[in-house]
């Protein structure tokens, strides 16, 4: 195994069957380096979400191995799983904020893995955490919204909070599951630009599930094309040609 692969994410023979005998992922192998944006494209139902949810174990893989910086994530349980999860940030399609909590509380949710229960309950976070939360809210342009309830924000603003929450974990890897599919095209570009800028500054590698091929080309250094639960394209955006898109999505009338 190369040293580059051990610094970063390593997936070997990943299989996921929601129903026995009907695999969604069919023995997937993937290495993701410790930096940069990796976009995963492919038709709906091909297992893009399943792939990234297997990484932080929101979905339990049926078989295969996943390592982050050399540590096996598959098979972790209880406390060990929690400690592994707090190193992996996640941004969701529908933001998944706690609507009745304030923006600040939502951002601090990213620290819950590090914070003892009584501190979290009494909102007695270490000053360094509060400081960092304000810095992140500054970076996403929402610091004046800190005391507002999350359900008072627009979709684009909510996703910015989602990004701040994920980065609040100080993650080694960020998973983004269709982070812009619920947003209008302009906001989608703005949110992606923000995600790319902040994760670049923090040197956090990103695995980005995305429907929009143009956005994938524009923001990613590497594109993974999935079809039928396996990887059918893996390369830089420049190498992605109409032939590959036919292979990934099938047909050609839409091109």
């Amino acid at each position, binding site marked *: 195994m190369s040293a580059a692969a051990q610094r970063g994410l390593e997936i070997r023979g990943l299989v996921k069957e929601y129903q026995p005998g009907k695999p969604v992922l069919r023995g997937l192998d993937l290495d993701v380096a410790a930096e940069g944006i990796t976009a995963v494209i492919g038709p709906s139902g091909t297992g893009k979400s399943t792939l990234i949810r297997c990484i932080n174990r929101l979905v339990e893989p049926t078989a295969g191995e996943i390592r982050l910086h050399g540590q096996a994530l598959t098979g972790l349980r209880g406390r060990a799983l929690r400690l592994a999860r707090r190193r992996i940030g996640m941004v969701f399609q529908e933001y998944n904020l*706690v609507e009745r909590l304030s923006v600040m509380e939502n951002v601090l949710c990213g620290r819950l893995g590090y914070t003892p229960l009584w501190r979290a309950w009494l909102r007695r976070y270490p000053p360094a955490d509060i400081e960092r939360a304000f810095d992140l809210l500054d970076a996403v342009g929402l610091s004046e919204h800190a005391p507002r309830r999350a359900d008072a924000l627009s979709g684009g603003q909510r996703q910015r909070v989602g990004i701040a929450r994920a980065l609040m974990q100080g993650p080694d890897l960020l998973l983004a599951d269709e982070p812009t599919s619920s947003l209008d095209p302009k906001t989608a570009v703005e949110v992606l630009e923000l995600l790319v800028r902040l994760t670049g500054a923090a040197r956090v590698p990103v695995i980005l599930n995305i429907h929009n091929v143009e956005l994938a080309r524009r923001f990613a250094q590497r594109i993974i094309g999935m079809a039928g639960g396996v990887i059918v394209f893996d390369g830089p955006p420049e190498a992605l040609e109409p032939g590959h898109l036919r292979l990934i999505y099938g047909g050609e009338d839409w091109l």
Partner: protein
Amino acid sequence: MSGAAAAARQAFAPNWGARLGLLALAVYAVFAATQLDLNWARLAAGFGEGGRFLARMFPPNFTRWELLLEGMLESLQIAALASALGILISLPLGLMAARNLSPWFIAVPTRAFIALCRSLHYVIVAILFVKALGFGALAGVAALTIASMGFIAKLFAEAIEEISMKPVEAVRAAGAPGASVLLYAVLPQVASRFVGFCLYQLDSNLRNSTLVGIVGAGGIGGTLFAAFKRFDYDFVCAILLTIIALIFLAEVVSGRVRAALR
């Protein structure tokens, strides 16, 4: 499209099951009335008695106000204690019974226990506690606590089952321990509904605490029952008016609290 064809398509299908069911209900109601010997003569006699009874109730007699106040205060204390205990026990019970957060081997037995708490009417439970613990307020508190548990724990569990799992998923993915997940992703979604249930339960405990005294479990009910037995109908009227005033007051206060929470 022609009018005839549109009519033939029938936008609303007749529901024969519901029609037959309603018809059967009406027939049974008539049958039951004849079985129970409910007729106009009986009703007229009843109204006559009712008139005499009402006449003896007025004017209400508040001369024994100390006895009245003592009973009402005891009822109030029973209600407050039973509500506090019931809510405190219901919180973990509701969490354990919620099928979206608890594994089935915890949720199913907890649900069975809650159903058990609900299965007997609180007056029957009060009788059982009077037999087991003896006369007095302790039995009343115990009975109403059980009743509160059965009611609020079930509503808590249902509210928790209706939450959005998306924030729960997000907080779990951040590596938060279970208790923090509850604190940040579950409770904020249900807190205002929980407060509503608790106010409602306090309300009904106030009402119920005035009754458990009839079976000897403390509170104004005992005084009320004694007054009935001694045909002190003017004192009965005073007690009833006081209870009604208390319930109205509780209604106003809980309405204010609910409005403030919104």
